[in-house]
């Protein structure tokens, strides 16, 4: 714009007016064009840039049609083969002959029906018309006033009914007939009922045809892998006709809109699509159709499990929720199972979520739970606290009630009237009753406390016994680097300075109990011990050697000889639960003989004698270890201990550890032990009630990012793109001190979390577990959580999950296969690869609930030896070297386990034994004959109680069946054991079907010619009514084996 003020420099009048004469067209045109351009840009943005899914859909339609094109001929050929198979041809032939047979009658019926329908059509109009007229007249009659009026109407009705109605074409001649209404009505009714009768007949005749057709199509569907050509054609048509449009799942109740399928078009296709098929991993089918069927996407959507922003379609990043302000980013593929945990937080073991399960195993097994509370883990301890609190408040209430009762009595005594006194006395009575009823409640609480104390376990060993158990100079070596001494151990490496190591060692050493010392033991036979160790089942939990052979549930014992004392280990192996001194949680100290002596009691404490002599409270009478007693004899225990103590390297240990007795060091060590939370995993004198030192992790993944302390790495994390929960957990797990990097901190302020030996997969599993640990699921994501999103385990499912916690706690899967597809640790050991040792594997527990009587199971779990007297044996499979240990489960846990097995096999909670039909004497003879016949192999493998025969036995005694088994299961087992327990020594094909019954497949004794009953049922009944006496008689009938005593034949090396 002109700012020129030199106004008179130019000649007047001639110059054009700079404002009035200037055209603005140029700028206007440019602005208009630019604006138009911006509109085009907006349009492009709206149609393409913001709609990347359109390109995905185009690509999908293209590749998918090519894929189907290729699939079509393949499936057509497959269908052709199925159609030409004899079975199909047979059905086809049957169908054709049936059709031929039925067709004349069908034609007849159809012809007649056609005639009837024609006549009905003719009759219908006049009939219905007249009926309507009569109905109207009847209505008028009802509402007409006087008698005369009614009469008139009646007459009219009569007139109408009389007709006559002239109707043409009713019969074949085509004559016109005159009918009254009644005649018409009758004829109409007759025709109708004839029509119904014919239809029924038609249905009856065609039923077998329909059946055969259904069979034919079912056969085709069953035998054709994949889709039929028709189905493929349907898919092709659908694909051709598919429009480019948003595909969304809308769950109204949840306010959920998921449009994932706008790009992931292959997810729910009925053909399985792979990345190779489609050339793009975006289009693959969902990898697990079973899961998809359970969590039907039309009811659940996608984002409730996978997270991400289901609504967004403008970019991959937005849709996956991988941007700063979206609180639920897509779970990374490797942690996808975290999604399961959001709802299934109480479930210990989940099908299809092995990584998550591994994460939980690690969380429990590596002792994370020692420092970090996590809801559901270590329940006994938490419940114990609750029980104690409740008991305390009850005691207070009781005291108050008693006091008040006394006051009431006093008030009553002083009352003015009798009525009033009575009122007070009554109130006092009721208070007294209340107080005493609290006693009952307290007792049950005490019982619960006792059981819970029995259930309570610690991750690490009891350190009160260090003086009795350990070599003094070994302790600092261990503390310096546990992984160096025992690679893979649960004990993590605390980043301790030498001074701290010394202080801690001194504290642990000095806090140990001095006695009573375990009894001195004579040395055992290490070679026998080795054999015992390898065959009794120790390797299901423990491992030996490097690389380790055996289970990773418990310690690797390779260098036990360098650390432990013989006497203590013997006692430990004999019964690991045996405590040196009982611990009184009330007095918070370990009791000694002197406490018992004070009250004139012997120093005896066990589950039966678990009350404190001083105050009557429940004592902790067991070591808090999950290690069970294997019921070894004293000699066996000595042998195993001798073997284990012989395991050592020639590492040398410094002698000068006098400082371990310095009380000042111990005091410092005590502070350190509290700081590092040693008491969380170990029992340590003085630190029994030490709280968990770590953060609770139950909802860790819902913590706002700002609350995760990345330390100085925050900006690096942001720059490198791992400023996420996953990034935080991952690095923290790999290097727990990482967020202290570069920070100046006093030693006591540094991060305490120790270095845990974790592999990449371990970190992934734990990360999956942590990422799924969220606040109430979907918080803020939906308006409200609709019913179908809630996961409330039913009784059965709840029982199963409760059981899994215990199965995992005691490592049942070390010896047993609990679920199909889950190998036990033992079954993987080299020894059990040998065909002969396979029978020595502990039984699989698949369908255990269906197999055994729950009452028996409860008894067995309480005492696997079955017998009170002879404990050094297996109760039911005495031929097994591996031994079912005595876990001393509390009744709580036994109940949970029994219910677990019942629920797993879908058995009713309450077991009522089936009624057994008694055998008559003839049947008994028959059964006995069959059992002992040449062809019957039963007694070759099953225990019979005869020492000579039992040498070869690889199966339990039939005598136990009555109490132990369920008859229905036994019958099924005899018929098809391989279907119940694949790979079992019990062969299939022992019986064959004969008419409606099962008969023994081999040669049967002559007496069976007349027997028409079911052989399996007969044998089951015999088995369940077998007595010891009967068994003896049975054995006598057997061809006697040449009696070679077992010992003589033993060329055992």
């Amino acid at each position, binding site marked *: 714009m002109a700012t020129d003020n030199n106004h008179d420099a130019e000649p007047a009048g001639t110059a054009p007016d700079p404002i009035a004469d200037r055209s603005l067209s140029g700028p206007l045109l440019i602005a208009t064009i630019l604006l138009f351009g911006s509109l085009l840009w907006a349009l492009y943005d709206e149609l393409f840039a913001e709609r990347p899914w359109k390109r995905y859909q185009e690509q999908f339609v293209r590749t998918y049609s090519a894929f189907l094109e290729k699939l079509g001929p393949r499936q057509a050929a497959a269908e052709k083969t199925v159609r030409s198979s004899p079975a199909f041809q047979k059905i086809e032939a049957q169908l054709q002959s049936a059709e031929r047979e039925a067709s004349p009658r069908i034609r007849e019926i159809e012809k007649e029906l056609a005639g009837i329908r024609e006549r009905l059509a003719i009759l219908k109009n006049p009939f219905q018309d007249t009926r309507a007229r009569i109905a109207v007249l009847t209505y008028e009659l009802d509402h007409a006033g006087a008698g005369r009026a009614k009469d008139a109407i009646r007459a009219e009705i009569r007139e109408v009914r009389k007709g006559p109605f002239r109707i043409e074409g009713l019969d074949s001649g085509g004559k016109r007939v005159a009918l009254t209404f009644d005649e018409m009505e009758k004829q109409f009714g007759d025709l109708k009922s004839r029509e119904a009768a014919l239809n029924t007949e038609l249905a009856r005749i065609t039923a077998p045809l329909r059946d055969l057709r259904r069979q034919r199509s079912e056969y085709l569907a069953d035998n054709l892998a994949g889709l039929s050509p028709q189905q493929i054609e349907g898919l092709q048509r659908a694909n051709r006709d598919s429009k480019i449009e948003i595909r969304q799942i809308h769950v109204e109740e949840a306010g959920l809109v998921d449009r994932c399928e706008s790009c992931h078009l292959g997810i729910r296709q009925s053909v399985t699509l792979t990345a190779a098929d489609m050339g793009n991993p975006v289009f693959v089918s969902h990898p697990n159709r079973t899961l998809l069927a359970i969590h039907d996407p039309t009811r659940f959507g996608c984002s409730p499990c996978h997270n991400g922003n289901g609504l967004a379609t403008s970019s991959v990043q937005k849709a996956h929720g991988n941007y700063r302000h979206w609180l639920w980013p897509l779970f990374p593929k490797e942690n996808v199972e975290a999604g399961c945990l959001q709802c299934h937080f109480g479930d210990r073991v989940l099908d299809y979520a092995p990584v998550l399960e591994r994460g939980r195993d690690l969380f429990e097994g590596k002792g994370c739970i020692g420092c970090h509370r996590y809801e559901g883990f270590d329940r006994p301890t938490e419940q114990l606290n609750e029980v104690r609190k409740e008991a305390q408040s009850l005691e207070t209430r009781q005291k108050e009630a008693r006091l008040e009762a006394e006051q009431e009595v006093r008030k009553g005594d002083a009352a003015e009237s009798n009525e009033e006194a009575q009122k007070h006395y009554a109130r006092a009575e009721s208070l007294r009753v209340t107080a005493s009823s609290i006693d009952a409640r307290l007792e049950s609480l005490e019982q619960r406390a006792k059981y819970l104390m029995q259930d309570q376990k610690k991750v690490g060993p009891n350190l009160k016994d260090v003086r009795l158990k350990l070599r003094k100079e070994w302790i600092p070596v261990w503390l310096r680097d546990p992984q160096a001494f025992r690679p893979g151990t649960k004990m993590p490496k605390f980043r301790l300075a030498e001074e701290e190591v010394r202080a801690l060692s001194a504290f642990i050493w000095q806090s140990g109990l001095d006695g009573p010392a375990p009894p001195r033991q004579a040395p055992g036979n290490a070679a026998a011990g080795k054999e015992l160790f390898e065959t009794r089942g120790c390797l299901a939990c423990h491992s030996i050697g490097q690389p380790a052979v055996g289970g990773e549930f418990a310690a690797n014992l390779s260098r036990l000889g360098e650390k432990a004392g013989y006497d203590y280990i013997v006692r430990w192996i004999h019964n690991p639960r045996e405590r040196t001194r009982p611990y009184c949680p009330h007095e918070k100290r370990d009791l000694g003989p002197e406490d018992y002596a004070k009250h004139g009691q012997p120093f005896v404490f066990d589950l039966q004698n678990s009350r404190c002599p001083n105050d009557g409270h429940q004592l902790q009478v067991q070591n808090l270890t999950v290690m069970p007693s294997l019921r070894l004899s004293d000699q066996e225990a000595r042998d195993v201990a001798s073997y284990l103590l012989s395991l050592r390297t020639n590492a040398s240990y410094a002698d000068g550890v006098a400082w371990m007795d310095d009380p000042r060091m111990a005091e410092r060590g005590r502070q350190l032990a509290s700081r590092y939370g040693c008491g969380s995993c170990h029992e340590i004198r003085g630190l029994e009630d030490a709280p968990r030192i770590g953060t609770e992790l139950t909802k860790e993944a819902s913590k706002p990012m700002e609350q995760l302390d990345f330390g100085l790495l925050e900006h690096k994390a942001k720059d490198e793109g791992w400023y996420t929960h996953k990034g935080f957990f991952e690095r923290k797990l790999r290097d727990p001190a990482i967020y202290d990097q570069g920070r100046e901190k006093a030693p006591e302020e540094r991060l305490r979390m120790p270095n845990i030996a974790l592999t990449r997969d371990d970190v992934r599993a734990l990360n999956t577990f942590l990422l799924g640990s969220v606040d109430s699921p979907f918080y803020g994501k939906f308006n409200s959580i609709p019913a179908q999103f809630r996961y409330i385990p039913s009784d059965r499912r709840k029982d199963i999950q409760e059981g899994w916690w215990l199965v995992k706690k005691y490592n049942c899967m070390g010896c047993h296969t609990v679920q199909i597809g889950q190998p036990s640790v033992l079954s993987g050991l080299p020894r059990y690869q040998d065909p002969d040792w396979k029978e020595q594997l502990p039984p699989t527990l698949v369908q255990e609930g269906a197999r055994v009587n729950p009452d028996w199971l409860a008894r067995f779990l309480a005492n696997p030896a079955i017998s009170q007297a002879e404990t050094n044996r297996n109760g039911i499979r005495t031929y097994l070297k591996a031994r079912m240990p005595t876990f001393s489960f509390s009744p709580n846990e036994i109940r949970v386990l029994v219910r677990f097995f019942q629920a797993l096999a879908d058995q009713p909670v309450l077991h009522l034994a089936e009624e057994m039909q008694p055998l008559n004497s003839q049947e008994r003879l028959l059964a006995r004959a069959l059992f002992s016949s*040449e*062809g019957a192999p039963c007694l070759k493998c099953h225990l019979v109680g005869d020492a000579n025969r039992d040498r070869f036995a690889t199966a339990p005694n039939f005598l136990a069946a009555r109490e132990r088994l369920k008859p229905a299961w036994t019958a099924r087992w005899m018929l098809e054991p391989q279907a119940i327990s694949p790979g079992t020594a019990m062969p299939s094909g022992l019986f064959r079907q004969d008419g409606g019954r099962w008969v023994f497949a081999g040669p049967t004794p002559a007496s069976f010619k007349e027997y028409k009953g079911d052989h399996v049922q007969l044998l089951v009944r015999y088995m369940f009514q077998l007595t010891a006496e009967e068994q003896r008689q049975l054995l006598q009938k057997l061809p006697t084996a040449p009696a070679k005593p077992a010992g003589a034949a033993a060329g055992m090396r």
Partner: protein
Amino acid sequence: MRETRGAIFATALVLAMAAGCGGSRDTAKAPAEETAGAPEGAVWKPAGDEGTVTGKVSFKGTAPKYRAISMDADTVCAAKHKSPVHPETVVVNGNGSLRNVFVYVKSGLEGKNFAVPDQPVELDQEGCIYKPHVLGMQARQNIKVVTSDDTTHNIHPLPKVNREWNVSQPPGADPIIRSFTRPEATIPVKCNQHPWMRAYIHVVSHPFYAVTGEDGTFKLEGLPPGDYEIEAVHEEYGASTQKVSLAAKGTASADFSFSPTQARRPSSLITLPALVLGCCGDR
């Protein structure tokens, strides 16, 4: 007005562009898709230039002595034998060669499909002993298990790769016909009722295998020319391989040798009393 017209124009333009791009992409993609589908492998047919591999499996050292099998668990079995029966674990022939060694082409035939013989291989149970003791078969070929005994057996193969089964066979029962679908070297077969009974089935993907017999030799005929790895497997002494090169219509030889020091099973494993009593009293 201008905006609407603009919108229509833009849509038309963009659609035209999209159509153009789409078309060109289609043509570009077509040939790639054709090559993607690999043809199914055709069944191999002999071309006439096949050769033979022969060899002998010798044994060095002293053969272990086995105690006679005690068949007192089943009198029927015991009755069938007049003389004591010894385990067939290590059988050394008179000429110093090793019997019951399974020899097969371990590698060199990859990518070829071989027709599955219609004839099943047969495993007999006679006198509570499996005959033959070592058996080779092709994957998907049928195995027919027959019994010649008057006692009930059960056939229990213990594969690791294939599916495990365990079927009872009473005297006079129909033969059991089964098959193994995947190649697997050494599937032990046992009878749970007669613990000494043992057979070894080797499942391979081709017909080029042999089991050494009384002279300890083997012959793999009809092999197409090429370089092969031949493996000899013995139940006790494990496996040993050799490389051979076969010219058209040529012959090649591969001799193997086993000695007791090669025992592959750790001895501590064999301590079950039933076994000690029964079969393999060990070397």
